[in-house]
């Protein structure tokens, strides 16, 4: 798409700005959930935009949001690698350590639907932030950013089937944590 690809072509920066800046809040939201720290999220988003500008010439539409998110996720993963206290490579198998209660079949053992108490945004954000990776990123991309399984699969570089099972797992964990939340006096 770009005619002139030089770095100092102001028209290119202009096009990038018009295309990418509308997603600044989205990018910041994703970074907040991935990094769980406001300052780190700001740094990651800034780095993401600089990298995205650098690679804008190789960007081929249609959707710029998933493209930005893939870059942002790489930046965040690099940040994790840098952090000394990084949650070390959470895998699908490792996630059982994250929940406080056995999660997977609990709901089936209690067939009558337990209604979820209304929680405010802050409380729900805290529950989401407590999800282990890679379930958290999948969950956030689906529930907060409304991306399709295909788009999520491309961003997290996993098959669609994996996205589906991670999402099912993430929701089960969140629901258990949500129900547990109700029992705590506030």
């Amino acid at each position, binding site marked *: 798409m770009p005619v002139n690809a030089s770095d100092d072509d102001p028209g290119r920066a202009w096009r990038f700005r018009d295309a990418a800046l509308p997603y600044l809040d989205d990018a910041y939201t994703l970074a907040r959930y991935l990094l769980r720290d406001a300052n780190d999220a700001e740094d990651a988003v800034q780095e993401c935009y600089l990298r995205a500008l650098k690679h804008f010439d190789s960007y081929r539409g249609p959707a710029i949001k998933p493209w930005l998110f893939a870059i942002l996720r790489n930046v965040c993963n690099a940040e994790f690698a840098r952090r000394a206290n990084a949650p070390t490579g959470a895998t699908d198998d490792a996630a059982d350590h994250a929940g406080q209660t056995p999660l997977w079949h609990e709901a089936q053992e209690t067939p009558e639907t337990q209604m979820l108490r209304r929680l405010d945004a802050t409380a729900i954000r805290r529950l989401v932030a407590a999800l282990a990776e890679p379930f958290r990123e999948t969950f956030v991309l689906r529930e907060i950013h409304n991306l399709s399984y295909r788009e999520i699969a491309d961003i997290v570089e996993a098959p669609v089937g994996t996205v589906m099972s991670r999402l*099912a797992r993430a929701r089960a964990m969140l629901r258990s944590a949500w129900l547990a939340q109700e029992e705590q006096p506030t």
Partner: protein
Amino acid sequence: MTCDEVEILLHALIDGELDAGHAREVEDHIAGCPACTAELAAYRQMSKAIAGAGLHYTAPPALRRRIEAALPQTKTPPSRRAVLRGFAMGSAVSALAATGLFAIVLRNDDAERIESEIVSAHLRSLQAGHLTDVISTDQHTVKPWFNGKLDVAPPVVDLTAQGFTLIGGRLDYVDARPIGAIVYKRRAHVINLFVAQTASTERRAAKAESIQGFNIRHWGEQGLNYWAVSDLAADELAEFGEKFEAAMRGGTAG
């Protein structure tokens, strides 16, 4: 289909990701299985609660400024052609940009360049879903928001009684410098009032301009330069400028 399979597939059902054949299979199982029916209802409820909770964050204005400042064109203002190309991206104005091309390209002095940047900033504010950094109809909320963000304190005047509703404020960039924008609305029309410091303290009478189909009204008073830009008709924008200046003289600025 078994409960174990449905336990995962019902999420794809909720998300509308199943093809028709699989969706029917899952629905058939759920219809005959109270446990899975309860599961589906519970997860639907949770998804709804999450969607309605507003879990998005808003990027801090400082982050937006840092990123804007890091983009090349904020260091070297774009050429006229680049500005026009920016315009051309907004489909609604591309036709106007084409007809106005020569008029713009042939003008070269600073004032004209700044005015076209003002229009460009106005356009961006409408396109990017970034009209305001601070949303408030209260002048005493909007004015303090600018504190520390600019080297001037833009006056914020409530003109609601005069038919111009205060919407909020925003930090923008014009001529490679941060500039305060105070946002008003009349009916569905947005007015961006850009305020920047100037060396001259003498009053400059208002001057009306039209660029790319947008009307600009520019005046200067008490060391501040003002540009009001809108798609409002010129006479209504003039009315806005006069009411604003009258309010300033009346000392009702917040």
